[in-house]
């Protein structure tokens, strides 16, 4: 697969706790890395509670140890802002943008807060094998 293409990975992975959003897709563009998430409001919170991302959220490429910090978020505010749900039945689709990562086989972590609690949106050892990727037109 050519490395100047945009490559999409279908992931559908849960986070490190049940309260985390679903990690849906990872898109590797030559200019950026985009990660799509879906969150469903939880019954245990009043009116579904709230969500937001830490400004310091980063991707860690396990093989190289390189860390790439969040550049942009759509559909979710950055702390100190919050998105408050209106009900326990709400849901939210959102995307996080990071600098481009190499289009080679790699394993990544997505970390909102290092050694964080189960409420933080952390995802570990996500395998990106180029053979599983599909080129976006």
């Amino acid at each position, binding site marked *: 697969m050519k490395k100047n293409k945009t490559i*999409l990975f*279908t*992931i*559908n992975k849960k986070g490190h706790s049940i309260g985390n959003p*679903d990690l*849906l*897709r990872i*898109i590797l563009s030559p200019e950026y890395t985009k990660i*799509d998430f*879906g*969150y*469903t409001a939880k019954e245990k919170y009043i009116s579904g509670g709230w969500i937001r991302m830490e400004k310091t959220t980063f991707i860690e490429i396990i093989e190289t140890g390189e860390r790439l910090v969040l550049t942009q978020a759509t559909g979710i505010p950055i702390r100190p802002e919050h998105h408050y749900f209106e009900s326990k*039945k709400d*849901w939210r*689709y959102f*995307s996080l943008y990071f600098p481009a990562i190499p289009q080679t086989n790699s394993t990544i972590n997505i970390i909102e807060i290092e050694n964080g609690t189960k409420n933080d949106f952390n995802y570990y050892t996500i395998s990106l094998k180029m053979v599983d990727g*599909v*080129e*976006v*037109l």
Partner: protein
Amino acid sequence: MILGFLIFILLFLVRVLLNYDAKIYYHSVICIRNKIFFIYLSKFLKMAISKSAYRRYKVIDSVLRNKSRKYPSIEEIQTACENALDLKPSLDTLEKDFRNMKMPEPDGFDAPIAYCRQNRGYHYKDPNFSINGVSLSYKDVDSIKEALEILQSIGSSRVSESFNYALNKILVSYKEEFPDGNSMRKIIETESISGSRGFEHFEILFLACKNKTPLSFTHYSYQKRRFKSVIVHPVLLKEFDNFWYLLGYSEGHNALRTFGFDRIYEPMLLNRKFIPTSADIVNNYYKDIYGVYPIENQPKQEIVFFTSTIVSNYFEAYPIHGSQTSKKNDGGCVFKLQLVPSVELLKLFRSYGSELIVMQPEWLFEELKN
């Protein structure tokens, strides 16, 4: 001397401007043949004809095509021009117009105008000729006007921006062609509320179906309250009860699946080999179902229900499926359907409350009772 020079310059400018006016380019000419529209959008019709001359040509053309008044004299054509354009062209001008219209394209229209000595008037040797390529009777033109009005009524908010854009171009040309058409007057109103979620994806989903391009998108299930990223090989867009759906082969489900537009997020076209679904399968997919979402593990079966007299009138007037049969009695009517039960069928039955009672199958009776 300076004054003379200025007058010379002024006259020169006037001449240049007049010459420029004579080089007006006419775009978007509608050509209708056998009731199919061909819009010349990219190709400009380059004609060194002034706008006023072109308007006269259109009047001459319409007069010569008027089947109810054949062989008009030049004076009658002159009167028609005066009525239509509020400007009476001289007979010399009209004769010059005839000559110009007879010239081969692109300078003229290759119009087969001839003078009939016997009938003392002008006519087209080819009765189907028109300078706009229109070979339609007035009845046909009326039908097209009606069709355009229907298109405007149903098309404006239901499909994509690009469709609207194309439709508007046709309508603009139509108004130019048939100025009597009052396309602003709404005669048909269909149920359509703008701002429906997911409708902004209409174009990409339509193109994916048309070009057989696989799609990646995120889907949110209202029932399961769960997000899932899917790769779908799309085949059909379906509208039911004012909701839009995408039907396609889902790689994850390894089967055909229906996805509501409102639950689709960020569709992306993929460079991936398309997995086709045969036309027979697609055609039969919604054949035995009312709606789009079949109830899991329920095959096609006979569904019998009773309705009160008032409700039976609606079911009789608007059968919900081709298999529907009915038998009336004094208290109401018994209907029978051969269908795969669906979410939408249950919703419909529930909407009639106690005015509708399911008699068969038993499980459906119990389901609705709950």
